């Protein structure tokens, strides 16, 4: 029969230009060795948890594959690359004679693309009788582009598929050239001889993300925490990478907006001619119901490959990540043994366990000194410095922090905060949450032409004294004259005081308007 070869040959002979090269196709089904480096989503703050349905980070994937390159010109197809591949970023090395070009087709093999790519192709139309089960087959040629239609030419004339009410289906002799089941990058190469080569393919892919997750256990006296941290890696890609050397990179990288050729999953809809029948016509209406007829015209919604992220595996591993290496201006965390970065999954690896980190708890506020009569709750902040003296002294990647304390022998969650990237030597401040029992109140007590006197009162309901700090946002042109001595931080007056157990502290100050 006139099957694959005939059509291909016919195509290539049809061109006026020199005939397409006698080209062999070599398919490499998957990588032999793979290395995955995951980068965080550029815009996500440390506070925002990973959304497994919507991962905006990315990964650098480097694969090695052993490939038999035939002599002459050939198309090497790398199957099983990540679905989120950014083809522009691909780097291919290891071809002894270099490569001619690299290609990436957006079409995957699907019910859609099979029809969409079959314009002008000869198919077999198979009809099965519902009554007798008898099967008839006839030849047909697809005459329409698939844009909402499938018109076939049969020996009897022109017919539309799926408008008849018969059981009918087109049968294809072959998969149209260049359609793969899985995401594929292909490379055209020219080799002087047949040779086996180890080639490396690297590319960036979207659909990955990672972050650190810290668990801090506060000691009974509140001066130390035992800090433990996970690196949480997540992939929403459809491709799994088995036994991958896996890294995570911290730091902010510049990314540009690039147009990425989305994978083609065109929602092909086959439509028939108008098929309203008399029983669709509603009583007491002179107009045909447009929407109804339109809905019924969609005879077949072809199945769409659903990329569901329904079945995330969440994997915890027992290995420990060593301290990071410096990569340019970034930090690289290396998982010490190969792991599987599975499709649609999240994986956690321990990377830090530091016991007895010295911390202080502060209650902090930024206040408008002109406030009158209102009360505000202070924010609880855990403060330390990223040094060996405090029991830290290693780069801390951004992530969420859970603070626990033991009460009656079981851990109680005190609050949840977050941490931005912190280099060695930096101050580390973790905002844990609002303190319901440390409350400030500002009252007007006296005023004149260009001044006002206020009193700030802080109350503490806990049986222990607390450190309290208030920064004043003084309006430009106003001068704040306190009764007690204030220091400055971030260019703002700062009142730092210890509020006694179950007690209060007060500050009286005058605001003078210097503008006149």
């Amino acid at each position, binding site marked *: 029969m006139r099957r694959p070869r005939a059509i291909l040959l016919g195509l290539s002979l*049809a061109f006026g230009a020199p005939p397409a090269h006698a080209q062999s196709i070599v398919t490499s089904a998957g990588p032999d060795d793979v290395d995955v480096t995951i980068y965080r989503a550029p815009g996500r703050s440390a506070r925002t948890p990973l959304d497994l349905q919507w991962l905006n980070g990315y990964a*650098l994937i480097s694969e090695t594959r052993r490939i038999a390159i035939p002599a002459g010109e050939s198309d090497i197809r790398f199957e099983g690359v990540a679905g989120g591949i950014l083809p522009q970023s691909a780097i291919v090395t290891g071809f002894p004679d270099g*490569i001619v070009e690299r290609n990436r087709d957006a079409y995957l093999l699907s019910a859609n693309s099979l029809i969409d790519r079959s314009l002008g192709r000869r198919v077999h139309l198979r009809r099965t009788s519902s009554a007798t089960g008898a099967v008839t087959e006839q030849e047909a040629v697809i005459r329409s582009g698939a844009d909402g239609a499938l018109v076939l030419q049969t020996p009897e004339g022109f017919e539309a598929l799926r408008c008849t*009410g018969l059981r009918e289906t087109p049968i294809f002799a072959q998969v149209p050239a260049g359609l793969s089941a899985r995401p594929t990058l292909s490379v055209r190469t020219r080799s002087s001889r047949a040779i086996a080569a180890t080639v490396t393919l690297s590319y960036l892919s979207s659909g990955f993300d990672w972050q650190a997750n810290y668990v801090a256990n506060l000691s009974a006296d509140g001066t130390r925490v035992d800090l433990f941290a996970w690196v949480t890696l997540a992939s929403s890609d459809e491709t799994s990478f088995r036994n991958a050397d896996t890294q995570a990179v911290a730091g902010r990288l510049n990314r540009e907006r690039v147009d990425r050729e989305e994978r*083609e999953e065109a929602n092909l809809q086959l439509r028939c001619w108008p098929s*309203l029948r*008399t029983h669709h016509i509603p009583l007491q209406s002179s107009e045909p119901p447009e929407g109804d007829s339109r809905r019924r015209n969609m005879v077949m919604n072809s199945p769409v490959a659903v990329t569901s992220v329904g079945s995330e595996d969440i994997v915890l591993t027992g290995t420990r990540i060593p301290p990071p290496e410096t990569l340019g*201006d970034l930090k690289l965390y290396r998982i010490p043994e190969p792991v599987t970065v599975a499709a649609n999954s999240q994986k956690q690896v321990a990377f830090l366990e530091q016991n007895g980190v010295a911390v202080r708890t502060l209650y902090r506020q930024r206040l408008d000194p002109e406030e009158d009569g209102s009360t505000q709750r202070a924010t609880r902040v855990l403060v330390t410095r990223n040094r060996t003296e405090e029991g830290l002294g290693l780069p801390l990647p951004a992530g969420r922090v859970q603070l626990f304390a033991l009460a009656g022998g079981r851990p109680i969650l005190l609050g949840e905060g977050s941490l931005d990237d912190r280099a060695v*030597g930096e101050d580390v401040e973790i905002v844990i949450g609002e303190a319901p029992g440390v409350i400030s109140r500002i009252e007007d007590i006296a005023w004149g032409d260009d001044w006002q006197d206020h009193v700030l009162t802080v109350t503490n309901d806990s049986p222990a004294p607390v450190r309290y700090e208030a920064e004043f946002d003084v309006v430009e042109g106003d001068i704040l004259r306190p009764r007690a001595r204030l220091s400055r931080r971030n260019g703002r007056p700062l009142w730092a005081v210890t509020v006694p157990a179950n007690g209060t502290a007060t500050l009286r100050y005058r605001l003078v308007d210097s503008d006149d």
Partner: protein
Amino acid sequence: MRAVILLSALLATPALAQNTIPPPSQNAQGDVAVTIYNGDLALVQDTRQLNIPAGRSRQEFPDVSAQIRPETVTLSGAGVGVVEQNFDFDLLSPQALMQKAVGETITLIRTNPATGAEVRERARVLAANGGVVLQIGDRIEVLRDDGLPVRVIFDRVPENLRARPTLSVTVQSEGAGRRPVTLTYLSAGLGWSADYVALFDENAGRMDVQGWITLTNNSGTPFVNANTLLVAGAPGGGNGGYQRRGGPIRQPGTETSDRERLGDFYLYPLPERTTIANRQTKQVSFLDVHATPAARAYEYRNGWLGTTEQPMSANTVLRFSSSREQGLGDALPAGTVRVYQRDARGNPQFVGESAIGHTPMGSDLGLTTGQAFDVKVRAVVERRERVNSERWRTTMRYTLTNARPQPVTVDLMQGGLWGDTRIAEESMASERRSADEALWRVLVPANGEAVVTATFDTRF
């Protein structure tokens, strides 16, 4: 009885035998040359061998770009003059087929659901509004009103219903015979940009750069075995190449590349013919430079009256040149530069990317690839005082920290100084790069910090 009559009527119509389906259509493109510009624009030249009769005839050109701009079509061939051009985009679909068949006669094949027996009838289509109204003999019916299976067979497809948009040209020819005819048109849907892979060796201060041309085809049409030329530029378009302060070109170059030029544009021909499939991304190498000098720098720019609540990472900037003597030695078409560095195991890792515009040869470039984990700047407005009704004094403190084991130099910039701003005091000498901006080159010791203070005397 009637069925028998109708059946014989059908047999009288030109019934097609099994082997008369015309062969599958082939790509009708001839010798194709494609010139692709940056702004979603391509010029397609397609030379086809056509057999044109003498006098007036209508020639069809299937397989032109689906995004053709029909008003830009020109046709040239020996002794051929164009009378008129049509671009048909009425696409073949069951609905269009039925609507065009109104008034025509079609064949129905009814299948008996119980026995599978088939009955053929000829029918005239009266209307196809909402449902299809048919006249069969002397009765009027709605197609498939009873829901039973009915095959509808059309004898032919109307001429102007196309599987793909098709160009047709009516020509006046002086003589008959086969000759080459060249079709030229502009089309949207094709574009290109450059992608650069830069492998930076920080210790050696060197960088290897590969340049790739990335070609995308969303025109809806493959271009087969095309002679392809890329033009670095967008004719008549562009945004003036506007670049913000701190953009990649630090000093535009004045050297001319050895590449072919046309007008203001550099040309990048692909070395051999290639097939550009629809929805394909294709990449071809055009630049490969080894060990060009490159260095890392740090930059931080503070806005006027900017106080940062937390230390902010300084920008990491990769500096290099595109000059012949000390750099890449080429003009760089617009694209994205992706920078890689080797990790402790020697594997290249991605460390950031930056877009560049068309860059002349000899330019100094500074690409911001990201922000440094270990180099941070904290800017604080320490004091702001009104001197008199005209002037303000603003004291800034900049704390620069470096957690790297080597000293680094940070270019610290304070912006927003426009007008007659004076720097009254400063802890180290600044360069005033413009009325707007002061620059301090601050050396921050290894694992240490440096502090810069400055007092500005301003009108605002």
